[in-house]
């Protein structure tokens, strides 16, 4: 798979032929759907809560500057520091400077999509700091040297057998010689290895699901507990978060938490929701001595002013990809970018450029399921449609496609000509189908007929039938 959005079509073709990937995606597709529906059925107020959650984020976006200032003031008042970064490079540099200030050799990391977005791991490695991913899914793909294929299940594309092989390739060198096949044993082995890391790391880096303006707290939501051990034991806790993660109050966070876990994993609450405010207090039994929040813009301030702003409400639950037929067929790596699925198809062109990522808004059947399950009421199909329109208007779609559409539009505006030509076409297709109702070969449609038959149309168009059947009355 190529790690660039422009390769989506080639990547998707490859993905469809990958038996392991299809096996892994099959397990995910049924699991996520059932769990989400069950969780929502237990909360009659769910839809009303989604409306309120979306309204909270809209309010924040309308006052983002003031909320960020309040958040910063509260972090400072609790003894922490805020670092503002306009782009990925600035964020990487400040994190490196912070790590070097405590002579860090090894840092533990909780799961963070922002760390993926800024390419933190390869950068730290190049600067002789070893980043250790502690979320089990992230740990698996770090061993495999791959990117996450899902925003909440980074190793969703891996089968259990593949995890066994991966552990057996890496763990014998550190004292675990056997190839394990039971899931519980695999989890246990990773647990034992990572426990040694939490207690020895020089700094811990986590992301944030929310930043609370009222208190200056950063919030992580996890099931494993790795994000907590990542921040409790080392001397320094670095939080990396994008600017739109702001939530006004603890009350507002409560509303968002009610829709987040249910939409994501189908839990009523994730196991660990942790609010971190500043460094350890004088006399505290444990906690980091330093607390730093690295705030990332990286294009979001531009999105805020445009007509794709709704995507900034996203709380990264993953429901859109869990319910997307394209994602569940192609997998996350096909998107060739940090973010995948419907939210990725909108966010990636906005964060990079539509020219680089124009294939992504086309990676949708517009079935509308993503919008229906989005707890933040993001009109994902509309945003993708707008991006398609932009791509067409700015002439970055393939020329063949634009010429085809122009021809179609020209023809569509001339009804007599259109009916004449389509009538000839229908007859021709019916002759080719030779009464079988399907075509296994069709000129100019080799891409379709290579893997499946093309259904033959009716021999007469609706308009022609209408005209013929009305004749006796006329």
């Amino acid at each position, binding site marked *: 798979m190529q790690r660039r959005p422009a390769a989506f079509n080639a990547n998707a073709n490859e993905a469809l032929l990958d038996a392991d990937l299809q096996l892994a995606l099959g397990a995910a597709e049924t699991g996520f759907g059932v769990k989400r529906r069950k969780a929502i059925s237990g909360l009659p107020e769910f839809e009303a809560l989604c409306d309120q959650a979306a309204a909270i984020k809209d309010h924040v976006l309308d006052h983002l500057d003031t909320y*960020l200032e309040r958040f910063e003031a509260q972090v400072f008042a609790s003894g922490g520091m805020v670092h503002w970064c306009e782009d990925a490079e600035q964020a990487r540099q400040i994190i490196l400077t912070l790590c070097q200030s405590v002579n860090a050799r090894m840092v533990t990391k909780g799961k963070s999509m922002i760390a993926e977005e800024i390419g933190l791991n390869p950068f730290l490695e190049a600067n002789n700091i070893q980043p250790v991913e502690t979320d089990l899914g992230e740990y698996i793909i770090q061993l495999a040297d791959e990117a996450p294929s899902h925003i909440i299940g980074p190793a969703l594309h891996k089968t259990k057998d593949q995890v066994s092989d991966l552990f057996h390739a890496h763990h014998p060198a550190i004292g675990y010689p056997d190839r394990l096949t039971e899931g519980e044993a695999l*989890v246990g082995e990773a647990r034992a290895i990572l426990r040694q890391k939490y207690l020895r790391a020089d700094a811990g880096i986590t992301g944030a699901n929310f930043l609370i303006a009222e208190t200056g707290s950063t919030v992580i939501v996890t099931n494993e507990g790795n994000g*907590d051990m990542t921040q409790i034991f080392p001397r320094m806790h670095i939080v990396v978060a994008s600017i739109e993660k702001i939530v006004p*109050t603890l009350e507002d966070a409560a509303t968002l938490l009610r829709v987040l876990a249910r939409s994501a994993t189908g839990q009523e609450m994730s196991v660990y929701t942790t609010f971190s405010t500043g460094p350890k*207090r004088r006399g505290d*039994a444990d906690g980091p001595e330093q607390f730093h929040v690295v705030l990332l813009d990286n294009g979001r301030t531009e999105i*805020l002013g445009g007509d794709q*702003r709704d995507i900034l409400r996203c709380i990264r639950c993953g429901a859109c990809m869990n319910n997307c037929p394209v994602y569940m067929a192609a997998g996350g790596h096909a998107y060739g970018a940090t973010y995948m699925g419907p939210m990725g198809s909108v966010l990636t062109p906005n964060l990079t450029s539509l020219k680089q990522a124009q294939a992504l808004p086309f990676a949708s059947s517009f079935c509308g399921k993503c919008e229906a399950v989005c707890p933040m009421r993001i009109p994902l199909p509309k945003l993708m449609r707008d991006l398609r329109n932009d791509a067409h208007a700015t002439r970055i779609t393939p020329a063949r496609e634009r010429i085809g559409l122009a021809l179609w539009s020209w023809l569509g505006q001339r009804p007599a000509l259109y009916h004449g030509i389509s009538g000839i076409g229908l007859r021709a297709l019916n002759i080719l189908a030779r009464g079988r109702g399907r075509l296994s070969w069709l000129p100019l449609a080799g891409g379709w007929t290579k893997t499946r038959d093309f259904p033959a149309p009716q021999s007469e168009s609706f308009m022609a039938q209408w005209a013929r059947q009305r004749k006796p009355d006329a």
Partner: protein
Amino acid sequence: MSQQRIAILSRIRASLGARGIIPEEHAVEARLTARARNLIPARGQLAGGALVTQFMQFAVKTQASIATVSSAQDVPGAIGGYLTAGGLSGPVRLSGDGWLAAMPWDAIAHFNPCTGAVLETDGAGVSVALCGIAETATLMLTSGADAASGLNFLPPTHIIVLRAMDIVGALEDGWGRLRQAGNGQMPRTVNLITGPSRTADIAQTMYMGAHGPKRLHVIVVEGDA
């Protein structure tokens, strides 16, 4: 004030201005001061005995185990009974909480109950919850001089002791307790814990005890004030 900070804030203001949004600082101030509650689901609006009943019922659904005792004096015995029944061993690391310290730990001396820094070799950790939230059977724990957050994660078994009268309905009620306890100041760490650690990162199958505790046992103390 950093150059990056100025640049980001001015880009935000330009973007909001382009959309015709007029900055209303008082709207932010008002929201942060009012801390108004949004919709609270019916399941978070119980009172009285129903709170304890629902908390216990939902706790089991989160894969935690739960027991009640009638007095704080019975807590060590209940912990001993739980560890024995599960074939588990000590040491039992107690948080520095004064309420725990006053309990009769001699009764389970063979499990080596002790206070002090949590160690990897500890068999179980015992903490006291600030409150329990009946809406989702969530426990709220705060860090402090007598409460290490690490105790909630490092030992393979986590035991949380909770006063029945500290069970509230909704998460918002929990925030009320938190603000009251800290006199408006947030502790360094607030842990909301809902069940024991788990992962579904291997082939979408749920395994317990990913990094945090494999077992979560809650003891609800009914009698004490």
